[in-house]
């Protein structure tokens, strides 16, 4: 990571762009486009959740969709039973986080390697998919909420102003809520990464042995990181259930998990902006593919994943950052050379 990418300036710049988008977009685009943009924001939160645990915690989770789906289902079931959406909203974050903690306990305390980790998370996602898929009958209900099996749960009540079940959010305010959530998640994670906790998490990724020898229990830190990722994915799931007022088992599916990984790989591993960029680019591309018949979307997504792993393993954002930084250095090279020796050169211009 370049110095610029880890400096507070980049965080401020990103947040400023985000706030401008948040304020300007509802006035600039029509309602239909705004609804489309809402789903980009929701999916971007999901992308950031994986970008965080994978890029900073070194945890390759092939089942981030499990937490996403769990968040959506938790919200749906709770809000149908309770009515007021405040507690369901919180539950949709807490339940996936607890589930992630349980799963993380099995994985990290069993000291499984990252490859096994990938396979286990994949398996858990499939278990959930199979389970939920088979709950179609009327006997499968939690409280007054039928699970619906492969048909999903339709007509999920939308978020309301906390404490006032009648003040339901409009589509425009749902966009605002989603964008604010995205920006809060981004800001919170940037802060976390800069804090001591975040530094230990990153250190545990870089060299677990050394972290252990320094007296930190790497397993606890990985567990915290993983649970946090689960919580954020759950938040995204809750917003997703709100967006379409519908949730179905396909959000637990392999295709969903694959997509999240593709966003992160394409956008750039080890950054938080990367997954957002990757998510928007790929989602937009998927929509475009959906409008024509020549290429199948699996075909294109698969090809993109293979090409990026082989040729652009660092993803768009870091690669682009390198290119810009190199161009910048070339322009300023004569001046910089005279002033300070290269290794100590100020790197704030990078990126």
């Amino acid at each position, binding site marked *: 990571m370049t110095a610029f990418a880890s400096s507070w300036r980049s965080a401020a710049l990103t947040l400023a762009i985000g706030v401008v988008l948040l304020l300007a977009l509802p006035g600039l685009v029509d309602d239909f486009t705004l609804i489309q943009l809402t789903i980009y924001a929701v999916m971007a939160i999901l992308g950031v959740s994986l970008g965080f645990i994978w890029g900073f915690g070194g945890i*390759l989770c092939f089942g981030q969709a499990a937490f996403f789906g769990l968040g959506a289902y938790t919200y749906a079931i709770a809000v149908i039973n309770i009515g007021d959406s405040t507690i369901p909203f919180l539950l949709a974050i807490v339940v996936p986080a607890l589930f992630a903690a349980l799963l993380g306990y*099995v994985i990290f*305390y*069993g*000291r*499984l390697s*990252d*490859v*096994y980790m*990938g*396979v*286990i998370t*994949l*398996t*858990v996602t*499939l*278990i959930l998919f*199979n*389970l939920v*898929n*088979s709950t179609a009958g009327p006997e499968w209900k939690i409280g007054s909420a039928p699970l619906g099996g492969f048909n999903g749960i339709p007509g999920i009540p939308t978020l309301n102003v906390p404490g006032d079940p009648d003040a339901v959010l409009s589509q425009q305010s749902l966009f605002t809520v989603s964008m604010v959530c995205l920006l809060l998640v981004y800001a919170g994670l940037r802060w976390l990464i800069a804090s001591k906790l975040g530094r230990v998490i990153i250190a545990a990724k870089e060299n677990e042995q050394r972290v252990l020898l320094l007296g930190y229990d790497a397993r606890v830190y990985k567990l915290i990181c993983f649970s946090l990722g689960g919580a954020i994915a759950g938040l995204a799931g809750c917003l997703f259930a709100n967006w379409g007022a519908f949730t179905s088992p396909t959000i637990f599916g*392999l295709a969903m998990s*694959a997509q999240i*990984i593709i966003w992160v*790989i394409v956008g750039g591993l080890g950054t938080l902006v990367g997954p957002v960029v990757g998510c928007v680019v790929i989602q937009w591309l998927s929509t475009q593919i959906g409008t024509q018949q020549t*290429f*199948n*979307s*699996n*075909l*294109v*997504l*698969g*090809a*993109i*994943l*293979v*090409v990026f*792993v*082989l040729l652009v*393993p660092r993803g768009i954002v870091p690669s682009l950052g390198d290119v810009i930084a190199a161009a910048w250095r070339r322009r300023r090279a004569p001046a910089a050379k005279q002033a300070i020796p290269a290794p100590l050169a100020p790197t704030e211009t990078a990126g």
Partner: protein
Amino acid sequence: MDLAIIVIIQVLYAVAGLVIVSAGLAVIFGMMKVINLAHGEFMMLGAYATITAHGLGLNLWLAMLVVAPIAVGLVGVVLERLVIRRLYGRMVDTMLATWGLSLLLVGIVTSIAGNTTVGVSAPLGSFSIGAYSVSSYTLVIIAVAVVLALAIRWVLTKTSWGLIARGTMQKPEMADALGISPGRVYSVTFAVGAALSGLAGALLAPLTGVVPTMGGAFIAKAFITVIGGGPAILAGLVSASGLFGAINQLGTFLTTPVLGEVALLFTAIVMLRLLPQGITGRFFKGSL
């Protein structure tokens, strides 16, 4: 009594199914430490190869046991050359690239064959035990699994090719120094693994129905079996298949097929917590 025989046959059948589904993956992962997430799609290709060859008038057995493995083996050679070869030693990248391949293969086959289920009917009819009727094809699956396990053992232990392959995987530099090209050994091993996956897909085609996305149904079971088995290729494959197959089938008997599968996957996760190295990481050490 009749019921007991049926239960035993069904359990053996579930175990055999796992052996067949996981064999290709076990060879590729066990020998090369490559996690091939396109395994399910190799099976899907095998199934389509069978259906196409059978549709062209070829004998079904020939299509299943000869055409499918050869076709998928060739696909394996090509993909190994183009993609996998560049990523040896980078386990996570290999996983991601093969997942990309898996999506790519699903996309290609969907474009060609369409997203509809095609199938062949199971050959050989059925026979009856007491009041119960059993498909004879069940016994074929069990027999093939036994032959497959014995064949893998024979190739790895009794042939010079197996010796060379095992030696190369342990120390590629030494094999290189002795005049064997490790690249070619990797290539052939991957092709053999792919061919076994293709065979598995072909054998299951009459049982499951063939769609481009059929691979997804097997991938988790196959992986959990291979990883649950641990480092020894054959002993791991057979012991894990035995354990998980029995649990799956008994769970299915007592509840529903879905819950049987959930029981399988759940047991596997709990087992990996207790035995992170898999079954052969603790028991049957030093076996193959």
